[in-house]
């Protein structure tokens, strides 16, 4: 019995629950209800956009790993998340060829050039979207109305535009609650906002389901609740103060919370730990920075929506935050910095 060869490992010999892969898998699960809902509100085109986004991310990841001779990492689910989230940030009538470009850019430029999973400094899905927005600003701000009657029977022709060709729109382009506010000072009723009977990106329309998915992740300790809470709090406080100051000019915090991509950003994108600071203090400042920037861009900026830019800037700021808010090492004096 005792002649058995023993294995040797180094301490610690016990580890805490969640592994990276399990976390990633659960993020996908948490996103599925909101994704399904977007298919319900926008029909086939939403399904196609989401599918293309995920597929292009996976294919890009596979191809780049192969080309560079690295271990193929498509099975760690992170590319699936990137694809899903990219898809969720796009409008339903977005041409599929552009979606595919976005997926390629998200993984290639957003992740691979930095060294792959864990090394990227910017949120890959948002890098993809930022490039798409800068490249095709018209397509990415052409919105379909929700719940159109023929959404399950026909596909907008723009979705199937030929690769590299300009899409032709046969849909009536709607406005998002935010652009309606920015350009026409029209406030969408809160009920519609919360339950998704509005125009917008796939992931803008179901704030409640997204929040539910986020809460699930936070309860399972797979996403850092401090980030989400810090963002939402700063949005509520700042927009609340402005609203109290002048309710005519500044919309209510409720409108701010449930319009646009704030929920998706706060629950799923700002919480991507890869681009966020490591320390608790850093995380709280990061969240507050994002929240404040969202309000500032939405209210005073030229663009109707600022969540994407706010999160990317937060990502860019993260290393600095980690440096500035570096905790004092035990037993050293404050002054000693490195």
């Amino acid at each position, binding site marked *: *019995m*005792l002649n*058995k060869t*023993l*294995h*040797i*490992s*180094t*301490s*610690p*010999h*016990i*580890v*805490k629950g*969640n*592994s*990276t*892969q*399990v*976390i990633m898998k659960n993020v996908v699960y948490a996103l599925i209800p909101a994704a399904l809902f977007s298919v319900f509100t926008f029909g086939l085109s939403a399904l196609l956009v989401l599918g293309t986004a995920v597929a292009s991310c996976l294919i890009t990841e596979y191809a780049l790993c192969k080309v560079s001779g690295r271990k193929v990492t498509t099975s*760690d689910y992170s590319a699936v998340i990137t694809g899903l989230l990219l898809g969720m940030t796009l409008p339903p009538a977005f041409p599929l060829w552009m979606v595919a470009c976005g997926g390629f850019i998200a993984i290639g430029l957003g992740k691979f050039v930095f060294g*792959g*999973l*864990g*090394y990227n400094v910017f949120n890959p899905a948002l890098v993809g979207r930022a490039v798409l927005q800068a490249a095709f600003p018209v397509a990415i701000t052409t919105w379909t109305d929700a719940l159109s009657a023929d959404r399950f029977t026909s596909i907008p022709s723009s979705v199937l535009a030929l690769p590299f060709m300009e899409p032709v729109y046969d849909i009536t382009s709607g406005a998002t609650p935010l652009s309606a506010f920015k350009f026409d000072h029209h406030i969408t009723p809160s009920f519609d906002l919360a339950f998704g009977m509005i125009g917008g990106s796939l992931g803008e329309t179901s704030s409640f389901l997204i929040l539910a998915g986020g809460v699930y992740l936070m309860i399972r300790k797979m996403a*850092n609740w401090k980030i989400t809470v810090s963002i939402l709090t700063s949005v509520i406080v700042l927009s609340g103060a402005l609203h109290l100051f002048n309710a005519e000019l500044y919309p209510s915090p409720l409108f701010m919370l449930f319009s646009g991509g704030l929920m998706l950003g706060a629950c799923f994108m700002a919480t991507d*730990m*890869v*681009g*966020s*600071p*490591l*320390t*608790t203090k850093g*995380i709280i400042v990061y969240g507050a920075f994002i929240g404040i920037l969202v309000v500032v861009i939405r209210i005073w900026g030229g663009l109707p929506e600022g969540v994407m830019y706010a999160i990317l800037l937060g990502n860019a700021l993260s290393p600095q935050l980690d440096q500035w808010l*570096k*905790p*004092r*090492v*035990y*037993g*050293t004096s404050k002054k000693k910095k*490195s």
Partner: protein
Amino acid sequence: MKMLNIHKDTFKHGVHPPEYKEETNHLPIRQFDFAPVLIIPMAQHIGSPSEIVVREGQEVERGQLLAKSTGYVSVPIHAPAAGIIRKIANVPTISGKMSPGIFLEVFPFSGQEVAEGMPLDLETASADEILKGIQDAGIVGLGGAAFPTHVKLKVPDDKNCEVLLINGIECEPYLTTDHRVMLEQTEDVIHGIKYLMKATGAPKAIIGIEANKMDAAEHLERFIPEDLPIEVKVVPVKYPQGAEKMLITSIMGVEVPSGGLPIDVGAVVVNVATAAEIGRLLPHGWGIQERVVTITGPGVKNKGNYLIPMGTPLRYVLDQVGISDNISEVYMGGPMMGMAVSNLDISIVKGTSGIIVFNDEDVVSRNEEHPCIKCGACVEACPLSLNPSRMGLMAKFKAYDRMAEEQNLLDCFECGSCSFVCPSHIPLVQYFRLSKSIVRKRKSAKQHA
């Protein structure tokens, strides 16, 4: 009876591993049988190994001196049993290095009475005499580090020991030796503390205990005479509260300076079992012969706390307690810091606080390693507020010197909290251990050059 002093303060960060203590914490200490042959390595403490003073074939009494200390940072070794020296040869130790050792064949029918030595009277002995007595008794830290206790107790002339901290924390999962010692060797503990206070000149002593051992805390509280300046403080359960720096912070609210020693903040920390051993041995002038070891883990049949003679081969121990068929790894020490055993021919030494046996399904080291996803869990865990995530990456890119310069690598005491929480299963502590040794080597190479 005094009110128990429940302390809310604790150190920053840290982790909460599952405790698994309920399997053994109610089991009284049982005497372990003598193995037919005891194998006693000379290198079982920090410092220079002891020098053998017996010959092959010589008969020895229990407690007789087998090896003498070879300097200030060294202690003697005494015979754990009456018997005959069969052989003197190199023996394996847990670190993998070989060490000179003594094979002692135990007399099967001996009464195993301990040979009387030079008793040390608490009332009359001077501080230096007590320190000498502690060294002569072969006492090293039983908390795990096996550092010669008398060295630690010697307060430098320019410093003052204001408080003696008795470490009854036992924060490692599974282990219950200190817990049982506090319950069952209470008198020895208190007696030992008296010696220690005299030796260090400390005006008071504080026994630190975690809240998961309230019975021990209450028991001690009841036992401590009113007129002794000994306090019991209960602190919240958190790993690695037992590390001396953390204990000092939890109880005294101060931090030991980086690179400094507890005495820099006026404290000396001694493990409770070490204290008990001092209290038990010094009045008789005995040398240390056995220690309490927790034997537990999913692979063990008769779990428990055993009083095991020094030098008992691990193979014999496991045979006696019975182990399951699919064992995979055996650890000496706790699961957070203990070392995996590669060779069952090593023996129980003074620093062995526990033996844990894991079956195939319990072993976690084969989890696949993923890249660091910067989740920050390790940063939130590190009790020293280091940045294990960054250091892990730096180690991967072999930037060892920068780890030391920019990230305070040398402060890391390898508690394993970071590895424990890492969802990507990165062997962070292993990296740091390696990096530290490389940095130290480079430093000494530079000094010599």
